[in-house]
């Protein structure tokens, strides 16, 4: 599938793989929408320092220069495109991606919804899937591989149809991390089917559709709870005999709260490393939160780079 790196199991591995690709094919071109944010600029500067990405900043030139000066940000690899407001920044960043001048979009100082509205508007041909979702890729000490968990940032309460698309989007992301046929565990409050809990019947349906080849390129199993999805012992103890149980790559969750809160528990108290990316558009959209560590911000940019490379390869192979 790719010969440039093997299956990635840690957050450091994500950054290393981005460096490998950057060295081989040239740095990734990142369009930063509304770049007037010192935290985002610091993360960009660090990625540029690692040599795997080059940044075009869309924003007020005067403001950007003063932030760079005030925070002593190394900005040698930054190109600045002067814009009058966040709307114009988003529009121009999306345009750059649409015209193939940028490989991915980095969110700056504007709301996620405003950015995505522009990116997915009819002005551009960047819409790929009907639903776009946020995937948190977690490197959890004690788990033997990366765990993708979705969606804790965008889709509030996914419908059944949205779950299908979210699986497809997330599978592409995990393929780019070297997981050829990702294992998708579908979460529910209990691990048996009960009509009182729609999450359990939907999970069973997704599993059945996967068996019938209707959701390809992955192995799906559910309903299953978090512990059985990530521990073979727990799964076997409950009589769950399935490849996915205890070895999940992707954990598809039934609500934004469940996903957000479980991933934050792991990030805050484990401590797990975290890389977040929005999938489902023709180019990945990377976003970092103010409270993320520098390490996690760098990993978020790197994972978006890997995905953009993978999406381009898929396109040229098609």
């Amino acid at each position, binding site marked *: 599938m790719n010969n440039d790196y093997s299956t990635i199991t840690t957050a450091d591995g994500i950054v290393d793989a981005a460096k490998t690709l950057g060295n081989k094919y040239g740095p990734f071109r990142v369009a930063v929408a509304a770049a007037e944010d010192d935290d985002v600029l610091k993360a960009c500067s660090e990625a540029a320092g690692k040599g795997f990405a080059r940044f075009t900043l869309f924003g007020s030139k005067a403001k950007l220069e003063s932030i760079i000066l005030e925070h002593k940000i190394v900005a040698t690899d930054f190109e600045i495109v002067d814009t009058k407001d966040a709307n114009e920044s988003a529009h121009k960043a999306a345009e750059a991606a649409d015209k193939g001048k940028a490989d991915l979009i980095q969110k700056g100082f504007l709301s996620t919804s405003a950015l995505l509205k522009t990116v997915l508007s009819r002005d551009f041909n960047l819409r790929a899937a009907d639903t776009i979702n946020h995937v948190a890729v977690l490197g959890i000490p004690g788990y033997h591989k990366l765990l993708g968990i979705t969606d804790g940032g965008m889709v509030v309460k996914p419908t059944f149809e949205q779950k299908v698309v979210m699986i497809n989007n997330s599978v592409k992301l995990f393929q780019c991390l070297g997981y050829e046929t990702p294992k998708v565990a579908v979460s529910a409050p209990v691990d048996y089917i009960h009509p009182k809990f729609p999450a359990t019947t939907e999970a069973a349906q997704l599993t059945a559709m996967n068996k019938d080849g209707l959701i390809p390129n992955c192995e799906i199993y559910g309903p299953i*709870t978090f512990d059985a999805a990530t521990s073979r012992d727990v799964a076997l103890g409950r009589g769950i005999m399935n490849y996915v149980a205890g070895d999940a790559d992707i954990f598809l969750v039934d609500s934004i*709260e*469940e996903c957000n*809160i*479980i991933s934050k*528990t792991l990030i805050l*108290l484990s401590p797990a490393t975290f890389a977040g990316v929005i999938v489902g558009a023709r180019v990945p959209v990377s976003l970092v939160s103010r409270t993320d560590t520098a390490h996690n911000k760098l990993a978020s940019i790197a994972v978006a780079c890997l995905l953009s490379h993978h999406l381009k390869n898929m396109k040229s192979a098609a």
Partner: protein
Amino acid sequence: MILKSFADIEKAAREKIVDPVLIAFVEPHEPNLIRAIDRAFNNQLVKPVLIGDEKSIMDAATEAEIEVRGWELVRSPEPNYSAYQALELIRDNKVNGICKGVFGVKDFLSLLFERKLGFRISKNLVSGQLVFRNAKLDRLVIVSDPVVNPGPEMMDLVDILNSSVNLAHRLGMVIPKVALLAAVEVIYPQMPVTIVDAVISKMVDKGQIRNCLVDGPLSMDVALMADAAKDKGAKGEVAGRAEVLIGPNLATSYGIYKALTMFTESEIGVLLTGGKVPAVVTSTNDTPDTKYNSLVLAALCKPAA
């Protein structure tokens, strides 16, 4: 005094308890559970009543290298019968706690909740209370409900909150700080959880919820971490200092429970409250420490005579 760790809880329980608390153990033929019982027995916190197949229990004790001496044993040919016997002991006020052994959680809970038997009292909502201590935090934190109620409605969440506050009081938190968890810290109509949380918060101002401070919606990081609360500009007494976390549904709270157990170095105990006596319903995979901590919580929460 506010308790800061499970060592503190153990100490408080020992000071409070005059005689060891009688707890009925249903099908306890599991070495880790036997170890936990032995420790609680030696510390004079628990006096066990084991209910199940004698040989299986003795085999588990042998495997755990523990001598079962001075423990009461009630022979039972069959798991459901064991549970019924435990529930009769509760009904007849013969024991002050119940603990699940090798028994499916789902089946155990449905027996426990059968209305005609001894555990359930009036219309009280029974809920699961997780207590944990992690080195990243300077305090004990309660999380609810990771065991019983799959999709609590607003007033169920209020009942769960009140149960958590009762437990918090026993842990020495005089006015516990309660965070209602959501994905965000603000109220968005498109996220119904945030509206429910906001309404419950308002019930405190109206005097409908007492003896605690409540704020919600709050995200996990803002609720727990002072840094995150400061970074995100969250105001109020609860943000960054929460002692009780109320999850919006079971899948979320269960996820916290299992994420903590499997992937963090945390001390953990779990208790079901709201029944006639405290119930311990840990998972088979929980460590002996978690099982022991849960028994200590049960001893501390023994109903007043």
